[in-house]
């Protein structure tokens, strides 16, 4: 049952699955500011997914929103972890481009799962360097899921750096996912770039 709650929460937070990571030079955000930021961001997200726009329009709007509220570049670097230093500047640039693209595809994939959701913002508490805002996400026909949003101050404004579902960090999950690809190919970082490109091609062909 615990795992069920966790997995349902993971679905609720899924559009940001590939994006959640921490930023090294982040500043801690005050609890009230973090709650207000999540409240505002959540309302924008809900109004997009529940609007009468077409799927393509919604996908574009969501991409813009995510780029505004999520620290995507910092997330990408966190996900690379120790392999960041193994990349050439060109490879790093290529990785960031692919990472943004994959995030867009993942958001498009999840739009339907977000139909009809609503959320309430609960408390906020500091965990490590992050301010984590707790929310309860309700989807039609599903049990409410508790989802935590880690917020850091990046370049003077609050940004989401992680999603935590029942104690499970999505930035760590993504880092382990990517590390799995690299270690499975004898430590070759280029294998990760190939896998990301392959995934993008596969999704593009399927659409």
């Amino acid at each position, binding site marked *: 049952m615990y795992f069920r709650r966790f997995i349902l929460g993971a679905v609720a937070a899924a559009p940001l*699955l590939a994006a959640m990571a921490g930023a090294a030079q982040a500043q801690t955000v005050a609890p009230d500011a973090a709650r207000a930021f999540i409240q505002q961001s959540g309302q924008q997200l809900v109004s997009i997914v529940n609007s009468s726009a077409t799927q393509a329009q919604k996908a574009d709007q969501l991409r813009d929103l995510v780029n505004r509220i999520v620290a995507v570049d910092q997330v990408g670097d966190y996900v690379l972890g120790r392999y960041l230093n193994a990349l050439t500047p060109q490879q790093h640039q290529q990785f960031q481009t692919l990472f943004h693209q994959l995030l867009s595809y*993942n958001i498009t994939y999840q739009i339907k799962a977000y139909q009809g959701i609503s959320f309430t913002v609960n408390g906020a508490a500091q965990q490590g360097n992050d301010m984590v805002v707790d929310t309860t996400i309700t989807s039609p026909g599903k049990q409410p899921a508790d989802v935590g949003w880690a917020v850091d101050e990046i370049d003077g404004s609050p940004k989401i750096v992680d999603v935590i579902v029942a*104690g499970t960090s999505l930035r*760590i999950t993504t880092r382990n*996912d990517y*590390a799995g690809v690299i270690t*499975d190919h004898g430590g070759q970082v280029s294998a990760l770039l190939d896998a990301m490109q392959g995934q993008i091609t596969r999704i593009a062909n399927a659409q």
Partner: protein
Amino acid sequence: MNIKYDLSTLGHEHAAEEAYKVRLQKTNDTLAVQAKRVCCLGAPALLLATALSGCAHAPPRADTAAYEAYQQQNDPIEPTNRFFYAVNDKIDRYAFKPVAQGYVAITTQGVRNHVGYFITNIGEPARMVNFMFEGKSRDAGTSLVRFVVNSTIGIGGIFDPATALGYQEQDTDFGMTLAEWGVAEGPYLYLPVFGPSGARDVWNIPVEFYATPMELAPESAALNDFGWAQTGLHLINTRAEYIQPIDQIRATALDPYATFRSLYRQSRASELQQINQRNVLTQPDWVWPAH
């Protein structure tokens, strides 16, 4: 040819025949139960033995970062685990998932919720015992109250009035009990059919098999059938809830095996942390009133 019937022995023969039938029935039941026991108890040992046949190559110690990452990953039999993951993936795509989809098509979310309550309720006695072994007597009490309330007012566990009364479900299992006793999670294991596990958590399988209320009831064919039906329903109902998230992980993860491994490890660590953080007073407030 004279055939003489001895009426006095005819009754005995009949009785013997009946006794034989009963013995046969019992033997069949016993065989079924024994088969299940062998499966459950033998599974961990068999898997550990099989697992040794495929080991990952550790990076050299000189490569400190890679070696530390390998140690942290703690998946020394990764090739074997990946093989079983691929097997399960096939079984799931061609058997479990289609069945779960059919189940979803003929049931409503409400029905599936009630099936979930029912399955959870059957697991409460095992949770109570595990909480007791963990020294969490308040949590054990909660499980007991939940089982009693939901089995009676909740009509055999189909409803969950205990939550409304303030006794919310709190999860644990034998893997958590071992963790509380100081047993480390050990190497990661991916089991055929059962899925993600570990050297510590694998012992949860035989324990869960025995720790059901059905084990306390007298052995009977009907109870066996109920046990199998309940296990099947549990599998299908649970898989039905995972259709969307599993599809999502398969579609978006670059390495689904590594993703499931990470999710499993994190969720187990979080579960243990929750049990310890919720470590409420083990005696009622009225025994030692607050000053």
